[in-house]
């Protein structure tokens, strides 16, 4: 009742509900300050420089630089040379360059192509690892992004991924079905698990106004304890403590490449689902309604769209996608369920969706980037001793910078979209959720 769909004092919500505006903020559905005069003098270069792609690039570069500072500052050799910095600064810079470049080269080698590898298979294994790790990230990122565009902050990716993994594992070991069918059933089980878990938050939001951020955070924790209990139950437990029975081979996602590689059909599935989500959001009437509710719930209600139904639908679809992410984890790579399988995919997915600006293509690319960082981070840790935690720092810096376009623009002196004269501190996208906090 006290909700205001947009921030007070923001620009009038004058944009059409049709195609998504080319917003430079991470969350679609915001109001873009309208360019008063888009004159012909505005050069092509200006348009390129003010585009969101340059902004993304700038954010990545900034994050890498800050990460380098962190690597250099904690490197023992650099610290040694810093003690005689004024006597011979070149030593310091050489050491600093070596520390940072070694780490980043290892990161690259672990993510794309390992030029130090002894065999061809080992050399190209990193890129397939990147794709494998990216698979659940893309799916979960699509899930969070879909929620964003429908005006919902689904922080509960983690819980939904867990429930998806549980659903897939259960159907994967309990049923005895022919090859293709079993996989399909297991994947549907994963989607259903996630959808039900997210649906709880959706129904509560629609019926009681309970804020989805709080409810999904709580559901995350509940799911975490639930799986911890479940893997020790008689029905799920295997001989290894804390690990479930193995999923039958009929339910596993087929490998795309022979054995040393882990890449599986799930990656193709993720790409296909990304296309499906694009179609759903951009071409279907359900997607239109979802976006309408996300852009302006009041206007959508006036137009005859049931906000409550869309809220539940958005959460359920979003949860199904997250559940599928959990499904690809256990059906693609792990083959069994344990409390640790899920890792922090659900939280990483939030950053993936933000980086991908909630659009399917962007999310796929962001998922690939984060998959590359995760895959490369492992090699970096073993080769140069730079902790894997650096990847988290890089990820969070990237998202922070992307979320604040004026900051990146002022650092790189990029022009703002629209009129070049317009001050960059303009209105940004408003909160996609109607309001944070539990408005009863």
């Amino acid at each position: 009742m006290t909700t205001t769909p947009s921030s007070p004092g923001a620009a009038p919500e004058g944009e059409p509900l049709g195609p998504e505006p080319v917003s430079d903020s991470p969350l679609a559905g915001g109001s873009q300050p309208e360019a008063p005069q888009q004159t012909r003098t505005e050069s092509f270069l200006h348009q390129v420089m003010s585009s969101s792609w340059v902004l993304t690039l700038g954010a990545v570069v900034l994050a890498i630089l800050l990460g380098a500072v962190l690597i250099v500052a904690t490197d023992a050799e650099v610290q040694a040379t810093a003690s005689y910095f004024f006597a011979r600064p070149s030593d310091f810079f050489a050491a600093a360059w070596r520390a940072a470049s070694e780490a980043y080269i290892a990161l690259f080698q672990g993510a794309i192509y390992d030029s130090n590898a002894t065999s061809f298979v080992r050399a190209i294994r990193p890129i397939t690892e990147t794709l494998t790790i990216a698979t659940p990230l893309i799916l979960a990122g699509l899930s969070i992004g879909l929620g964003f565009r429908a005006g919902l902050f689904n922080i509960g990716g983690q819980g939904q991924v867990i429930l998806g993994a549980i659903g897939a594992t259960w159907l994967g070991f309990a049923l005895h079905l022919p090859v293709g069918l079993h996989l399909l059933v297991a994947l549907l089980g994963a989607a259903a698990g996630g959808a039900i878990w997210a649906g709880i938050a959706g129904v509560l939001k629609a019926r009681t106004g309970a804020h989805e951020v709080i409810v999904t955070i709580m559901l995350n924790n509940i799911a975490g304890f639930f799986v911890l209990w479940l893997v020790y139950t008689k029905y799920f437990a295997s001989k290894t403590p804390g690990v479930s029975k193995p999923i039958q081979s009929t339910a596993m996602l087929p490998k795309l490449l022979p054995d040393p590689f882990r890449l599986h059909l799930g990656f193709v599935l993720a790409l296909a689902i990304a296309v499906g989500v694009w179609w759903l959001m951009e071409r279907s009437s359900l997607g239109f309604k979802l976006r309408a509710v996300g852009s302006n719930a009041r206007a959508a209600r006036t137009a005859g769209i049931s906000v409550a139904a869309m809220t539940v639908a958005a959460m359920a679809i979003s949860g199904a996608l997250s559940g599928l992410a959990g499904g690809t984890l256990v059906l693609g790579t792990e083959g069994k369920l344990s409390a640790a399988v899920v890792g922090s995919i659900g939280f990483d997915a939030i950053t993936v969706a933000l980086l991908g600006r909630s659009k399917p293509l962007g999310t796929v690319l962001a998922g690939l980037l984060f998959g590359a960082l995760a895959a490369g981070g492992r090699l970096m840790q073993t080769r140069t001793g730079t902790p894997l935690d650096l990847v988290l720092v890089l990820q969070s810096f990237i998202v922070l910078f992307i979320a604040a376009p004026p900051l990146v623009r002022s650092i790189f002196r990029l022009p703002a979209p629209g009129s070049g004269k317009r001050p960059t501190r303009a209105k940004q996208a408003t909160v996609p959720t109607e309001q944070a906090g539990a408005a009863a």
Partner: protein
Amino acid sequence: MTTTLTPPAAPAPAPVAASTVPAVPVRLRTPIVLAVLTLLTAVMAWATRPGHSTVRISTDADSIQIAPLAIPGPPAAWVLTVGVAVAAGLAFWYALGRRKVPTWLVGLAGLFAFLTVLVLISSGKSQVVPITGLLFGTLFLATPLVFGALSGVVCERVGIVNIAIEAQLLFGAFAAAVVASVAGSSYWGLIAAPLAGVAVAALLAWFSITYQVNQIIVGVVLNVLVVGLTGFLFSTVLRETPGLNDPMRLPVLPIPLLSEIPVIGPVLFRQNLLVYLMYAIVIGLQVMIFRSRWGLRLRAVGEHPKAADTVGIDVIRTRWRNTLLGGAIAGLGGAFFTVASNLAFGKEMTAGKGFIALAAMILGRWSPKGAVAAALLFGLAGQMQGLMSTLQVPVPSQFLAMIPYIVTIFAVAGFAGKVRAPAAEGIPYVK
């Protein structure tokens, strides 16, 4: 706005006034909840095994020793059940008289029901229920939650959603451990921890107030950032350099006389400085938020920033300052994990406590008083896990661990009365 507050309207069905004065509906939710609780308690009393519950009140350090009490299980459980039933009856009496059921009554019924649980699980067993230890542990587990929740109260009251409580706690824990180790005194940790919290809060404020980035996004990302940053530094600098991360201990400072009171003394007044600071902050905030000029401005900015701006309150500055204050409080709470627990810093050692603190704040309805009560409740749930495993109760500990989260969901869904966030929360202010 529309609380369950009921005007003292005459329930008399005056035929003339009936058409003009809308009839106040009888609100039976609370009494019905209590009636269900009575039933549950009765079931528990019925299920209580014959025998005695042994309760130990004194701790070894007490100067006045009280011998452990042996309480007969089933009779005690039935007495408690009667207590809950009486409370439920009183609640019906209040509700039918169109009056608000007082909170203390609900609290009392809850206490009786809880004691029944204790009797149920301990009756007829040889293990002793250490009441004082249970309460001490409750406060211990609740301490970081109280700090985190108070941080949330301050930030959200001024209109900034603080999802980064977890990050502030973690960074506070980190800074406290490192600075205390380097300085050789745990008290330095108590100075460093709030500063670390302020650093995280400054990022939150900078992005969400100055750049108007969505506050929830910034909070989520800051949590990741601090996990990454502290993890990185932990694996590099702290591991390579000895003396940067030693377990430090905040000395216990018993308050003379007060600490000798049975039960209350050891629990409340045989604590370290951090806990005493917590008492001061809780009381200070409870008074200041609702009774001072600062508090009025704080709430005004969080509820209706435009109105606050109109009367000359600088919304942006108020939000900045109080977000930093909230960060300082949460950061100080982070010291609990290291210097107040006699531990060195470990990766992700806050383990989601920041999110439980967030839940405690909501359950406490954005007031310091309520946040403390909720934090204690969560702390008690944590303690019960330990007790139940000692008493070999066949309930998986994971389900007990879920309780705080389930309770919070029920609370925000409105099953436990109306919960309302500050109106302007999460919305950037644009002049």
